[in-house]
């Protein structure tokens, strides 16, 4: 099941710089997208989401961009901090159509390391 793909297994950035994490999807029914952060031995923690009616959503240091025509979304973290080091998952859901009860389809995750 490759409906949601994160092609970069890892990303390393310097503290204070921008981190850009990417995600691609193939299922055109997906219309709600989320980013989660996960530390080892913990559950995923919600970061930010975006509906397909928007192309950008911002929350503090985190901004998610959605390009529907390219079926691509990205998470920007500015400025990056060492505490941001974690695994980042994108997830997608098909909300419209009345048959979805919120099932999330996850990407493989990207390990972000922010160096001091």
């Amino acid at each position, binding site marked *: 099941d490759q409906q949601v793909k994160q092609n970069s297994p890892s990303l390393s950035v310097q503290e204070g710089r921008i981190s850009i994490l990417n995600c691609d999807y193939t299922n055109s029914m997906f219309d709600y997208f989320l980013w989660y952060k996960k530390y080892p031995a913990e559950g995923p923690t919600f970061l930010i989401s975006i509906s397909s009616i928007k192309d950008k959503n911002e929350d503090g240091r985190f901004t998610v961009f959605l390009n529907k025509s390219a079926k691509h979304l990205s998470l920007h973290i500015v400025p990056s901090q060492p505490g941001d080091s974690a695994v980042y998952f994108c997830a997608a*859901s098909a909300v419209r159509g009345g048959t979805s009860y919120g099932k999330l389809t996850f990407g493989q995750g990207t390990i972000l390391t922010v160096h001091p």
Partner: protein
Amino acid sequence: EPEVTQTPSHQVTQMGQEVILRCVPISNHLYFYWYRQILGQKVEFLVSFYNNEISEKSEIFDDQFSVERPDGSNFTLKIRSTKLEDSAMYFCASMWQTPYEQYFGPGTRLTVT
């Protein structure tokens, strides 16, 4: 801040045994989920539960699996006869309404020997 809790944090069981994984979702949430993550793989959807019944389930969720919300606060996942390949982290999640974010518990590590 409200959170999803799960017990136990780690469960070791022998193949063929029954296990029950427990979750307490956030109290005003209406949608409940189980996901699992086999080591090194993606987080996979197992089942969603709404209005006291299963609303959606994956191919993984076969007759060996069942879910219950017995008392309005707990949400359980039962595996009747565990297999080696059931070894994974199992995450419970809950959501107030769709489409909103799902909140995940810390997970139960299930090891089947």
